[in-house]
């Protein structure tokens, strides 16, 4: 069953009097029970997709899409109330900057206990309910790997280290027992042990509770440890999409190849201290987007034809947008 279905999502914004496309026909599907990685460099539009799904885009954005649905219901035409209901009970989001996303004027205990849905709370009398809320809160914090739960809950977000806030945000997201978890860069800056703890929690919830996860990140090692499928975004365009292993082993798009080459852990034969294969240049800003395929100026395979935007093509489960893909002959056959 398809939970989220986004087809050709385009987001435009005015910049110096012209409209620029921050997302240019981005597509993404999230199936029930899958862990999908959404990968791309900063500024490629990952967070914009997350905001578009959660309805958190500021009003100046112009949104168009062929399809943007949640369990078949059109997200773009539903009322705010309907949308809020989905966001409260079905889709939980861990935003990129945990400290900014938390309320600075309330302790973490207040924030967490208040967001526990009424039907999970046991007891009739207010003191029983209070006790029950606290129990739920402590056990959630334990689950995300916060050891001193009393200490954590007694403080305000800005008083705690970032990694505790990151874990706390994850607890907040899980409190409503959602169907889908969207986590925007949840492991950024985490050291390996903490990272593994969080990732195995995600994986566990995915297995035992059938939680579907959209994992937004460019930490390839983290992604490889859990993702079933992967969508690669470059500069607002989805360039490749498919089962993780097949994308990793046989990337069709030159950008995906560069991405895989950037993780030395993926190339066991690499000589220590040898140069990595790297693309030149940097990701262009919205004001200087190249026409056609946006990788063009940096792409080692680029030819004249690349000034036309490539359409998306599909082989088995694997989709790509490139005129001159790798591993395929000129008829597009594997």
């Amino acid at each position: 069953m398809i939970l989220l279905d986004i087809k050709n999502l385009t987001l435009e914004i005015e910049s110096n009097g012209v409209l620029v496309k921050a997302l240019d026909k981005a597509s993404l599907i999230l199936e029930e029970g899958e862990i999908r990685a959404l990968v791309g460099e900063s500024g490629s539009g990952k967070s914009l997709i997350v905001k578009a799904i959660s309805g958190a885009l500021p009003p100046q954005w112009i949104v168009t899409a062929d399809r943007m649905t949640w369990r078949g219901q059109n997200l773009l035409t539903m009322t705010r109330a309907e949308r809020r209901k989905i966001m409260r009970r079905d889709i939980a989001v861990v935003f990129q900057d945990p400290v900014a996303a938390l309320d600075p004027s309330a302790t973490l205990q207040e924030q967490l206990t208040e967001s526990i849905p009424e039907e999970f709370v046991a007891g009739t009398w207010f003191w029983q309910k209070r006790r029950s809320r606290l129990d739920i809160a402590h056990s959630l914090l334990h689950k995300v790997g916060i050891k001193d739960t009393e200490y954590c809950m007694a403080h305000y977000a800005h008083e705690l280290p970032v990694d505790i806030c990151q874990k706390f945000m994850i607890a907040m997201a899980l409190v409503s027992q959602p169907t889908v978890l969207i986590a925007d860069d949840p492991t950024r800056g985490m050291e390996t042990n903490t990272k593994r703890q969080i990732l195995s929690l995600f994986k566990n919830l995915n297995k035992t509770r059938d939680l579907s996860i959209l994992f937004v990140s460019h930490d390839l090692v983290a992604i490889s440890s859990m993702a079933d499928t992967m969508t690669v975004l470059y500069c607002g365009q989805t360039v490749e999409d498919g089962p993780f292993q097949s994308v990793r082993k046989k990337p069709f798009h030159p950008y995906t190849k560069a991405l895989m080459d950037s993780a030395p852990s993926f190339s066991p034969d690499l000589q220590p201290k040898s140069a990595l294969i790297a693309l030149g240049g940097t990701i262009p800003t919205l004001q200087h987007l190249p026409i056609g395929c946006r990788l063009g100026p940096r792409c080692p395979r680029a030819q004249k034809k690349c000034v036309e935007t490539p359409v998306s093509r599909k082989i088995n489960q694997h989709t790509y947008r490139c005129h001159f893909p790798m591993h395929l002959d000129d008829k597009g056959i594997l």
Partner: protein
Amino acid sequence: MSLLQIDQLCYQPKRPWYKLAGDDGFQLGPVSFSLEKGETISIIGENSCGKSLLAKLIVGAETPTAGRILLNGQTLENNHKTQRASNVRMVFRHSAHALNPSLSIGQMLDEPLRLNTALSAKGRSEKIFKTLKLVGLMADHFYFYKHMLSDGQQQRVALARALILDPQVIVADEPFAALDPSVRSQTVNLLLKLQKELGLAFIFISHNLGIVRHMSDRTIVMHDGQIVEMNLTQTLFLDPQHSASKQLIHAHNALLSLQ
């Protein structure tokens, strides 16, 4: 004789007045190791095990409570800022925060030269252009301000600022953490190239064990303010001895093999 020798370095934060004697809290050291010309050492360890503090002690941003640091066999004095500042340079964690937005790149690179050398204005700008070229920037970038540069270019400027005094040792705290994959590969290549060409020695602090394994000759594992293991990188990754090293490296390998 080693290029840099860290000898029994200790740091004990001052006890705040409200804490009782005996409650010592965190202490660093004693820490000893040496670094050779052209060598890269990485320091890995859990959060708040003292990695960044050690880096600060090495570059002289904090003063150790005991122990000494020798450069080419000579003790680096903490009050001799010039000698220290020009030979052991730090690249800051988040280059974006470390660069002053109100100065042009040229002015930013001029500052350490004015403070630490006797070069004339002309000599200084020649040195600046040379250094910009060295890190793969253009002469035009002299007139740019921080906000006009991409992440990768800012990282290059931070590196240029560290290189401008012709140091022998570069200390970098999480130089890769804020970088995107393609820019990170470029930075890795640039550092490897500079090391080859200039014989620079590096001390890296990083959580990215994939990069640590690729770039460093030796790796130090810190735990609770102490060095608990130090070995050739490839050996350490294959056969970690101390429980803290095992934990880190197994966690990394587990992530890789979970696929």
